[in-house]
């Protein structure tokens, strides 16, 4: 209290203001308070930015390697007497030779390649050398031959996937120390790999297969790709868009413009807000009960996923649509009614076009939310399904079992092989690219359609 006394004029001479050139104690305290308050804000934003940067950097560092893949180029001899005994180049005959028939050819080519590279090694058997290649290499070679039977009888260069351990060695994930306890590959193999890298037979390059390919079984992470899961997500989003946009917009227009204000509509309103806050797994179990157990729709199918996610997206769309309808000034409605437009005409001709940017933004945000949703997919069986086939056609896209991007990421993260872990990070990058793109589109649409009044 002594402070205030000094700033005040002596008693008996009530002078309210001192010099404006010096701040009173009160003002100083107030300014200090304001300064602190601003600092808190800046600090909060800084913490947020640090987390964001850490997130983005981690995702990129961990995920980028998934987009490259190590391949080995081998000169493989395709003897006609083994692959096509009749010599008629009849596809049915060639098909009789199974993947196992191709493995010896690869083995021979490997032995030759190692000898040519001049690597001294204890591993002499081709079968053991084949550990460096993906277990799918035989099938890869067979498919190439089936596609082009004329190759039979020649020696041709094939680029085959290496095993995930060799790939991991090229990416720095696998070391000689870590291989000491690994049954799939020995440190000795890595000497050969070093030699083959020198000759250029083993190369690491950008891999479209990760983006467009199918998922692969647990033992072949090097073959796994996101492509089919992306299609699954695409078909799901199609269902969500086609159902939730018209239903959501129609419901919001009715509630906002036509419905009478009474207890019943209040009840509906409260429930829509509540639905938006319901955990997504609840929608998942609802989808399981209604769409699969009751309606007998196919399990793991994008149509069920889409329907379930529609339930989840609807409240978001309804809420954002109602907010944007509300933001249209009532004077526009009056104007339309005043010239004798019906209620519907005033909504369709004037209110809806003005609310469009908000509706579109809300829809895209809702879709983006649905795109990243994993929990409901757990319950309807879209997780755990190994998506090794592309859907053939649109009906198959909706009805055949599939996975979705977040489900695929979850699935990979669950698997034991660290190579899958890397692919999970890569999948997250793809998912985030989609989400950022959708948000950018939302911002663009908003700018594009925004009108002043």
């Amino acid at each position: 209290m002594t402070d205030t006394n000094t700033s005040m004029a002596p008693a008996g001479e009530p002078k309210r203001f001192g010099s404006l050139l010096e701040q009173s104690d009160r003002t100083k305290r107030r300014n200090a308070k304001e300064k602190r308050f601003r600092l808190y804000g800046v600090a909060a934003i800084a913490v947020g930015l640090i987390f964001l940067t850490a997130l983005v950097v981690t995702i990129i560092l961990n995920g980028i390697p998934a987009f490259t893949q190590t391949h080995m180029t081998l000169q493989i001899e395709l003897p006609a007497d083994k692959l096509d005994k009749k010599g008629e180049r009849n596809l049915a005959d060639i098909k009789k030779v199974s993947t196992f028939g191709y493995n010896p050819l690869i083995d021979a080519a490997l032995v030759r390649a190692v000898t040519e590279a001049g690597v001294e090694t204890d591993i002499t058997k081709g079968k053991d050398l084949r550990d460096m290649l993906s277990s799918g290499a035989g099938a890869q070679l067979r498919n190439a031959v089936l596609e082009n039977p004329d190759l039979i009888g020649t020696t041709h260069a094939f680029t085959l996937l290496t095993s995930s351990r060799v790939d991991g060695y090229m990416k720095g994930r696998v070391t000689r120390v870590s291989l000491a306890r690994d049954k799939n590959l020995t440190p000795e193999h890595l000497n050969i790999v070093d030699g083959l890298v020198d000759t250029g037979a083993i190369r690491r390059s950008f891999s479209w297969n990760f983006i467009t390919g199918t998922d692969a079984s647990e033992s072949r992470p090097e073959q796994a790709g996101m492509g089919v899961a992306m299609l699954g997500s695409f078909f799901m989003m199609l269902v969500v868009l086609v159902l939730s946009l018209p239903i959501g917009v129609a419901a919001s227009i009715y509630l906002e413009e036509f419905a009478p204000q009474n207890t019943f509509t209040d009840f509906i309103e409260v429930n829509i807000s509540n639905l938006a806050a319901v955990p997504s797994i609840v929608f998942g179990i609802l989808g399981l009960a209604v769409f699969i157990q009751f309606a007998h729709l196919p399990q793991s199918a994008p149509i069920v996923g889409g329907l379930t996610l529609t339930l989840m997206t609807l409240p978001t769309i309804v809420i954002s649509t109602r907010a944007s309808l509300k933001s249209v000034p009532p004077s526009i409605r009056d104007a339309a009614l005043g010239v004798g437009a019906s209620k519907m005409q005033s909504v369709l001709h004037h209110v809806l076009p003005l609310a469009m940017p908000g509706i579109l933004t809300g829809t895209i945000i809702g879709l983006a939310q649905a795109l990243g949703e994993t929990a409901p997919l757990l319950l309807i069986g879209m997780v755990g399904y190994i998506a090794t086939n592309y859907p053939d056609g649109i009906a198959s896209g909706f009805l055949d079992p599939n996975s979705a991007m977040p489900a695929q990421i979850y699935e990979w993260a669950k698997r034991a092989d660290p190579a899958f872990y890397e692919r999970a990070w890569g999948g997250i990058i793809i998912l985030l690219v989609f989400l950022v793109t959708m948000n950018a589109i939302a911002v663009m649409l908003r700018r594009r359609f925004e009108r002043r009044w």
Partner: protein
Amino acid sequence: MKDNIISEMDVTTDKIKISARDVQVYYGDNHAIKDVSVEIQDKTVTAFIGPSGCGKSTFLRCINRMNDTIDICRVEGDILIDGEDIYDSNVDPVQLRAKVGMVFQKPNPFPKSIYDNVAYGPRIHGLARNKSELDDIVERALKRAAIWNEVKDRLHAPGTGLSGGQQQRLCIARAIATEPEVLLMDEPCSALDPIATAQVEELIDELRQDYSVVIVTHSMQQAARVSQKTAFFHLGNLVEYGETDKIFTSPEDPRTESYITGRIG
């Protein structure tokens, strides 16, 4: 600026256009309009004056049933236009509003082109069979609203880009494009500067030849300038109704006198 000459003009017709009997309006529990009975003549400008919250706008909005859009609003009593009860259950408010046009307090053009603003009414009512007829209607309405010369070169520019006074005249053009018989104006000049106000007032006087115009205004000078009949509302009651000259020179009710002399309101 206009002088008082307009108000001295005789009322040219005695035909009753709008007749209200014992109208009561409730907003929920609030009794906003009490026992209002009034007869509004054709081809006349009738001004509603009174302090804020006295119910004049509410009553105006009853005449084209704009109050229907407010959920809690309830109207009792009869309002007849040309002898027909507009609150009859057979009456479609949309048809009514085509016959009774309205201009609002704040200029509210649609965020569309000037042309589309005016053409909207005729389009939804099917008044034009083809494009050239519609063009004629738009031109006629804009000319009548005394804005044609200012906008004829930019009919496809947005209506929201006009100045406040031009926007209000555009709204008047939009209202008269549907060929209504009654034109309701809810404080049409309250957002305008004196010059724009003068233009709109001049326009109102011209519109009188074809329409029955009812105007709500806060400005007593404006009521005196443009109207032939004036109704004074106070606390939901219609206190006095009569020839404008008489209301402003020798009002019968002491409340009217207090209001026009500036003692209350």
